[in-house]
């Protein structure tokens, strides 16, 4: 059973900047939901609120029964929410495998003592999760680079590592912040396929921030549009695409 995500009247301010003002929308379980809007509209801020990095000044975020807006980031992760970062935030010196293993942090238990003493159950746990990590890496076409330090990989590949790490958390709600930035059309298409097949295989909810409209149109079940921190539209991709406000603020006359 997956939960519904309800964002209810959320506001965030930074000094004079109203990054989000009374934003509300609902993400139905098992759908792919896109959030779009001009630069600085508050999309990443929204993700930061959803993942507990920023605290909303007002409003609520509910994921099923739990209140995400009251949690700290690591508790949000425990509630089954994982995300990627717009500006890649990986450990550059660590290998891809090590970075992915971090994704499994909240699924594993080993503490300082058990880890330091190298108790047998630590080894069992590690082996079991390493196998899953390899599986996910394979899925995101990272199988060949598992032992490469992330720092030397090209930008586009690092973006895939980000996505893989979030997947490794086995989330029920996956937040992707511009997953195809810096990819060419072909790479974008493959990423879109991947996202689709994640949803199909794992049956989870995905929220996506993206500027590549082709990708949004092809993937999203529903789209919410933000501008200057306010929701200016919400609907199916087709509805949104023809909304005059959205065209004026975001798409431009093409």
């Amino acid at each position, binding site marked *: 059973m997956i939960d519904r995500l309800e964002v209810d009247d959320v506001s965030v301010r930074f000094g004079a900047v109203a990054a989000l003002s009374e934003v509300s929308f609902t993400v139905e379980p098992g759908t792919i939901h896109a959030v779009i809007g001009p630069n600085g509209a508050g999309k990443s801020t929204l993700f930061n609120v959803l993942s507990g990095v920023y605290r909303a000044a007002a409003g609520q975020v509910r994921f099923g029964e739990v209140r995400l807006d009251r949690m700290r980031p690591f508790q949000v992760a425990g509630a089954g929410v994982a995300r990627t970062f717009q500006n890649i935030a990986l450990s550059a010196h660590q290998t891809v495998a090590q970075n992915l293993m971090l994704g499994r942090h909240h699924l594993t238990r080993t503490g300082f003592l058990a880890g*330091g003493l190298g108790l047998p159950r630590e080894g069992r746990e590690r082996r079991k999760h390493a196998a899953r990590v390899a599986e996910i890496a394979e899925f995101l076409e990272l199988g060949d680079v598992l032992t490469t330090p992330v720092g030397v990989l090209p930008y586009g590949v690092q973006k895939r590592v980000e996505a893989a790490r979030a997947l490794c958390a086995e989330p029920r709600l996956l937040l992707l912040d511009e997953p195809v930035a810096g990819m060419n059309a072909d790479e974008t298409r493959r990423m879109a396929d991947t996202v689709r097949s994640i949803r199909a295989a794992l049956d989870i909810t995905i929220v996506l921030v993206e500027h590549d409209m082709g990708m949004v149109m092809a993937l999203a079940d529903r789209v919410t549009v933000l501008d200057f921190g306010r929701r200016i539209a919400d609907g199916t991709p087709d509805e949104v695409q023809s909304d005059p406000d959205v065209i004026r603020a975001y798409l431009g006359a093409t």
Partner: protein
Amino acid sequence: MSRLRWILPAIALLILPFYVDEFWLRTGFAICGAAIGALGLNLLLGTTGQLSLAHSFFLAVGAIGYTYFADSLGWPPALAMLIAVGLAGLAGLAFSPLAARLRGIYLGVASLALVFGGQHVLNSWTSVTGGFNGRSVPDFSLFGFPFADTPRVVLLGVPFAESERLWYLGLALLLGAFLFARNLVRSRPGTALQAVRDSEIAASVMGVNVQRYKAGVFLVSSAFAGLSGVLYALSIGSVAPESFGLFVSIQYLAMVILGGLGSLGGAVLGAAFVTALPLVLQRYADELPLVTGAGGDGLAAGEAARYLYGLAIVLVVLFQPAGLAGLARRFRFRTAHVRRGTPDENTSVDPGSGDRGRALDDRDRVQQ
């Protein structure tokens, strides 16, 4: 084959007391003690990226705690050691909320306050610390077996006195500490700590309770420092607050950097280098060129040691950012290739290469 690489040095270390004299055994014991402290600092600095100059304070807690428990309270020395180590760990834990608030170099400088403040407290608290002059340290004993010169034991014609006994104690404790640190880094907490180092926000979003892990690593690191302090106390036989000043913290920093930040084997090598250098130079001053024995007109041994070790720090950071561990790795890498008869066509996988390290540093910053 890789097992052989461990067994030979292990045997050499075990039979050492049968071949070398007291000076070297004592030096060896001092190295073991320092190495444990360096391992602890490496967990903090190398693994978690927290710059702390307060290490000497935690050393002091261990050393003085042991002396107080075993001497003033008369507890069995092994218990006193355990409790002193725990106490040092708790001191680290108590410091961690401050550490959680400060970042980078601010943390480093703030931790200086612990060194100076700690010295002040320890100097004033004479009933426990013995004040400026310090107090003498009771001998260690384990299950009734004393680590002292008496009762006399002779093994295979070699007197098995305090220095021999301590050597094995140091070796055993160092091995334990090393394995603990290594396991820790390789397991789940290690991954989390490294993530905290690279980006606290990313780590917390992936489920790491950053505050708690910082507290945890401070606890472990200071407990290591505490154990190191106990061994220091045992090796000298007397502790005074004065012995745990800023310079000691700097020495530990030097061990970790010289050894190679983030490398546990490196920390041990670094500790050996920093600890032994002044002693050996002093001892063999007469045989060394340029260095004169005490009272001569040339470079005094103590000065020579300090020059060398300042120079070593600068050179290592400049030319071998991966430290002694990097050097060792490079050497091993090369010999391994020669043995296997493969030309090293992909040096690019050598993680110890300085250039690669540098290139990565840049990448790091791109992503911030």
